[in-house]
């Protein structure tokens, strides 16, 4: 009988220690579908980035253009025309990341121009850098294309229900000719319902 009790106690302890948690914090899957609210979320950002990159790389003139060379692109901004505060730079960062890792395009980063200029001035003028190893100014490559776009939304609320429609448009423009070589569009519709007691 005693042996049974000891065994039961041990089993319970093992079970409880196995379930021990480190508090109320847990890690989630960053790639999971997020449907907490109808506001712009991580899944929307990821779906937009994936769709834009896939569409662009599948477009026949772009396929042809990137067959033997890696054109240089500069990223402009996404105009946020929605009523929400959305970090649109996060969308362009994801798109840039995917395009670079595809091996099809190269990018120049206008956000780091000031830091680069400061570093070049330091190398040239500070007297602290061995001039035989200093980077020479004037070697940057001019971008051939520019990427920019718009994010807009239509929000409708009625009787505790809400419907949000997002439209993201993106375009690749040739800086020499001004011709828009490619455009992509992603639409997202989200519907939400307020809980019965408004909680």
């Amino acid at each position, binding site marked *: 009988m005693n042996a049974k009790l000891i065994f039961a106690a041990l089993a319970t302890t093992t079970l409880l220690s196995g379930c021990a948690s480190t508090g109320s914090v847990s890690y989630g899957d960053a790639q999971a579908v997020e449907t907490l609210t109808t506001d712009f979320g991580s*899944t929307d950002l990821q779906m937009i980035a994936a769709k834009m990159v896939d569409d662009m790389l599948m477009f026949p003139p772009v396929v042809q253009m990137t067959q033997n060379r890696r054109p240089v692109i500069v990223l402009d901004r996404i105009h946020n025309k929605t009523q929400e505060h959305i970090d649109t730079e996060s969308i362009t960062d994801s798109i840039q990341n995917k395009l670079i890792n595809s091996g099809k395009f190269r990018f120049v980063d206008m956000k780091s121009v000031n830091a680069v200029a400061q570093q070049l001035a330091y190398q040239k003028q500070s007297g602290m850098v061995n001039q035989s190893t200093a980077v020479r100014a004037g070697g940057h490559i001019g971008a051939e294309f520019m990427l920019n776009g718009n994010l807009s939304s239509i929000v409708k609320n009625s009787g505790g229900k809400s419907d949000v429609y997002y439209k993201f448009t993106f375009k690749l423009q040739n800086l020499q000719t001004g011709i828009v070589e490619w455009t992509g569009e992603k639409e997202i519709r989200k519907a939400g319902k307020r809980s019965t007691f408004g909680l």
Partner: protein
Amino acid sequence: MKRQFSFAVLGLGALFMVGCTAPNALSTQTNANNEMSIRTITNNPVLTTEVFVERVNMSLVGDLKRASIAIKNRRFNNKDFSYKIVWVDAQGVEVNPEGAIWKPIQLTGRETKGVQSLAPNPSAVDVVVYLKK
């Protein structure tokens, strides 16, 4: 008798819980002759009765592979599912596994919807398609 009943209840409970979470998968394998074979992994038999991958086609866009996948709802009512397409290289190693995202998909009764995915780079040759509720 009672014990058998308890086990049956536990078993059904476990099956029910798995039915809610476990994804089913389908993977392609392309050999040296460019012939593709398909393998399905059924972790969730309940889900199989609701949704499945009806067709997988591979094509080339430049030097990148494109997977065109048809997902079919077996039921007669509208269903919401999630799918994820993971690209793998010739050795079966996932290419940028964290870049593969779960995407929501809504299917009306008996609808077959086509989805596409482009390989993240030329080393990616096969896909693993995950489906879950």
